[in-house]
């Protein structure tokens, strides 16, 4: 206890956060020792503001630290909620990514042994990211699928988030494999526009069927069309300038469709 007390005006300014730093420091030092002044201060404090600050403190102290991938995504500007949804994407697990890398490494090795396998790489390359999208929604691999189905979160929004996450991770793996191929450099990039177009086509089909079925339909159509061209060495038909323009158009068209639907999602009209 002390005989000296804070001036009522000083208390008011301190309680409202309007005191200059030297006065605030002095007031805090005194309040630590003086119960009478603490009582006076409490009558000036905005209880709602104090509760908000206290809840924030509890939240910061009590919430477990996010995993490293989530922290990295948040640092890149992704919202903490989206980062958690991405972290739960089954396809982004180590074993799946290793499997994709292993298949592609095998393709690159085979291409070095026989030139015919080089052409098949172009057929196989877009299937990696596409399979990733399908697996991200396969019931057996998403342990919380049933809970997710009964939740109000938009299925399409989740599809877009997971698709984007899968593409961001798998496309660099396929690109690295493409760069390791022997022969012409254009092979390393010729699969990119078809991949974008095929992904957009699969997403567009999800309005009519499950994501896994949509990817299966698109992938089957892709293999049926491109495999004969690759086998007969008519790559220009499937990967030439005309084909690239076609895939660019599909990707742009799909992008417009997705943008339109994303807009609808923001308005909350899509379930």
């Amino acid at each position, binding site marked *: 206890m002390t005989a000296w007390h804070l001036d009522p005006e000083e208390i008011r300014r301190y309680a409202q956060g309007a005191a200059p730093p030297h006065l605030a420091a002095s007031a805090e030092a005194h309040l630590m020792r003086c119960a009478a002044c603490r009582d006076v201060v409490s009558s000036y404090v905005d209880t709602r503001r104090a509760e908000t600050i206290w809840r924030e403190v509890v939240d910061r102290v*009590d919430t*477990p630290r996010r995993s490293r991938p989530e922290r990295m995504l948040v640092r890149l500007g992704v919202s903490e909620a989206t980062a*958690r949804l991405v972290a739960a994407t089954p396809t982004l697990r180590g074993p799946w990514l290793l499997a994709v890398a292993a298949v592609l490494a095998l393709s690159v090795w085979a291409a070095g042994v026989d030139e015919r396998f080089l052409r098949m790489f172009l057929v196989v390359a877009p299937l990696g990211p596409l399979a990733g999208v399908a697996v991200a929604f396969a019931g057996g691999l*998403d342990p919380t699928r*049933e809970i997710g*189905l009964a939740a109000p979160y938009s299925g399409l929004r*989740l599809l877009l988030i997971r698709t984007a996450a899968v593409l961001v991770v798998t496309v660099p793996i396929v690109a690295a494999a493409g760069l390791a191929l022997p022969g012409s450099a254009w092979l390393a990039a010729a699969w990119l526009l078809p991949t974008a177009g095929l992904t957009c086509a699969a997403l567009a089909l999800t309005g009519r069927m499950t994501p896994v079925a949509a990817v299966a339909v698109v992938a089957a159509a892709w293999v049926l069309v491109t495999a004969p061209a690759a086998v007969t060495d008519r790559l220009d038909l499937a990967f030439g300038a005309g084909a690239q323009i076609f895939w660019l158009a599909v990707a742009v068209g799909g992008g417009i469709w997705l943008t339109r639907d994303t807009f609808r999602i923001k308005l909350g009209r899509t379930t």
Partner: protein
Amino acid sequence: MTGVRVHGATKSFGRTTALDSVDFEAGTGVTGLLGPNGAGKTTLLRTIATVLAPDRGTVTLLGLDPSRSDDRTRIRERLGYLPQDAGFHRGFTVFEFVDYVAILKEMTDRRARHDDVRRVIALTGLEPVSGKRIRALSGGMRRRVGLAQALLGDPGLLVLDEPTVGLDPEQRLRFREMISRAGEGRTVVMSSHQTEDITALCTRIAVIQQGRVRFTGTPAELTAQAADRVWTDTQRSPAALAAWRTGDGTYRNVGDPPEGAELIPPTLEDAYLLLMGEPELEVTHP
């Protein structure tokens, strides 16, 4: 308002009819679904959880129509669901997993969401393991995590598919306590094989077999179905539908008793066994 109203619901998977013109209602309190494996309990609960739509019939949940897109979203905002084989992202901690489901439930304000995550973790007694990875938890603890996520957002309708399966007796008692508390002021529909759980928790029950509702009413009304049809004897009676040797060495017989049989009060389990053994019988208590 009746929380759940299902009328004439039929659902088939290929040639298998999982639900056959099912009528079912549940109001405030805990309503139990009892039936053997493959009876259609899970299909009915998945329909109530808006995961499945019936091929025919109508469903009304919390006064809303789940076949309408807008209504379905509003129902899901007020629905808690614990599936039979609830899976988990095992690399997540308990807090992270429950928070993940809270995000799926569209709880957009981070602080309010975290407050609610902490609330359900405390309700289910998971505070000591909140920061532990799910892969390190026992089966009973994981079941609690499943219940915790279902309680997020203080739902008006709680759907629990076999919530006590695989739990030891003490864990089952704790679960009963949690479910009983959850049933205060909201509609809870739960399925179980355990007649003890149903007796202890439910104000009303429906017995379902081969996709059809065989009985609806209170546990006491179901038990009353077996009045004067349970007796003890020193041996297994040929007239019994079911009979087993009890701890005191006598046989408990369920069925049509012979003349002069020593009748004893029936249990819910006796009535359930009788109902399952008499496929033509259908009983509805309003």
